[in-house]
């Protein structure tokens, strides 16, 4: 084990972190839209949201990744493995986040919204200033959990040739014949990234007025 190996694994960690951050944020944006659809008054929208969520929660991520990786070139879209990985991770996490957020919105105490109406907030202000932050607050622990899940699940992208932590560790173990050191270091990098996610979640919680845990 040399510093070169650690450096290469650190590069893999940047790839893993990048994949996770992009898929979590884009997944949150899509998740908000899907959640809005699932709470909408229009039955077709609710139905579409339900199908979307069941599909992407039901298909294993590994299968989804391989499917996208092989499907995109078939329909004439030639993209690198990274894009297939991002699309797969994003679709998967968006479905989970949509469900989590929906639970948050449904559980908002009606009195909090009524208090906003009495103050004179309009529908948009009620959503942006009251309902969304409170839903986010109620679901923050679950969303941090989802971040950790995606971070770890992103190790599956090695199957589509993306050089993340896991893939780098695999390559290094076959070239050095020292798999234990390589995978142990890879594990440490995953742990470090998870600590950052947890810290970030706590910081966000404080911004939303959650009591310290």
């Amino acid at each position, binding site marked *: 084990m040399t510093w070169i190996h650690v450096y290469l694994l650190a590069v893999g960690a940047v790839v893993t972190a990048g994949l996770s951050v992009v898929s979590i944020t884009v997944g949150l944006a899509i998740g908000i839209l899907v959640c809005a659809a699932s709470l909408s008054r229009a039955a077709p929208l609710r139905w579409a949201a339900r199908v979307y969520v069941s599909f992407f929660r039901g298909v294993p991520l590994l299968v989804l990744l391989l499917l996208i990786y092989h499907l995109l070139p078939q329909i004439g879209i030639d993209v690198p493995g990274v894009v297939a990985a991002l699309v797969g991770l994003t679709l998967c996490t968006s479905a989970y986040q949509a469900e989590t957020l929906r639970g948050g919105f449904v559980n908002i105490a009606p009195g909090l919204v009524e208090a906003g109406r009495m103050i004179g907030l309009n529908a948009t202000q009620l959503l942006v*200033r009251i309902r969304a932050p409170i839903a986010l607050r109620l679901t923050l622990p679950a969303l941090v959990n989802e971040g950790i899940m995606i971070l770890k699940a992103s190790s599956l992208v090695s199957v589509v040739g993306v050089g993340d932590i896991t893939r780098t560790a695999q390559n290094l173990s076959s070239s050095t014949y020292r798999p234990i050191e390589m995978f142990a270091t890879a594990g440490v990098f995953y742990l470090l990234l998870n600590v950052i996610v947890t810290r970030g979640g706590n910081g966000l919680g404080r911004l939303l007025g959650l009591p310290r845990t």
Partner: protein
Amino acid sequence: MSGDVAITLRNVVKRYGDHEVLRGIDLDVRHGEVTCLIGPSGSGKSTLLRCVAFLEEHDAGIIRIGGAPLGFDERPDGSRIRLPITEIARVRRNIGMVFQQFNLWPHMTALGNVAEGLRQVLRLHKREAHDRAMAHLTRVGLAERASYYPSQLSGGQQQRVAIARALAMDPKIMLFDEPTSSLDPELTGEVLNVMRDLAAEGMTMLVVTHEIGFAAHVAQHVVFLDQAQIALEGRASDVFRKPWHPRMAQFLETYLDRGASVLLGN
């Protein structure tokens, strides 16, 4: 419509399914007076208050706030029309409401709760909203708790912040739905004191309460609701001195008994 009437209800009906919760309520709440709404559980007090706030839509009759119809208006031919949402918001701007469960927004500090309407609805600048919100917190004795989140405040403090939040919007009428009912007995006093001060300053108040003492001492007008109807109303002194109405006598006995049992340490 006479100028000194703040709230008028005429034949107001509210139903949940085929259960009639308000059966043709006629009520006048005068400017500058405290009107207390009392009555047994399930008699419709909260529903009446929520209709006046238009948090519930009445099924028939008309409610006027300062003369302006709330939510629905009647055409000369007697048909009923729903008013546009902007008109509802305009009329509702005259009303502040305080809830039994406080309903402070948990993601904002005490100051943030009070400043929210000033910033978002009145569109004041940050500095001015801050100063006005601070002034209202000071008025309810909570200036030094401005940066606390609701979860860090006692029930009594939360309710006083909720009163400040409503007052910050400069309402002409304040509605209270059992503002002390979810408080420990030793905390009700601080909230009732704030309300007493508000009454002394001439605020028009419609208060649902089980605090018979508050109703007897502070209210000018007491309304006894029973089985979805107004069973008895009048000046506080008359209503409480001679509770000639049998249901009222029974109701008072229950609540005064409850007070007595507290005194006896039971």
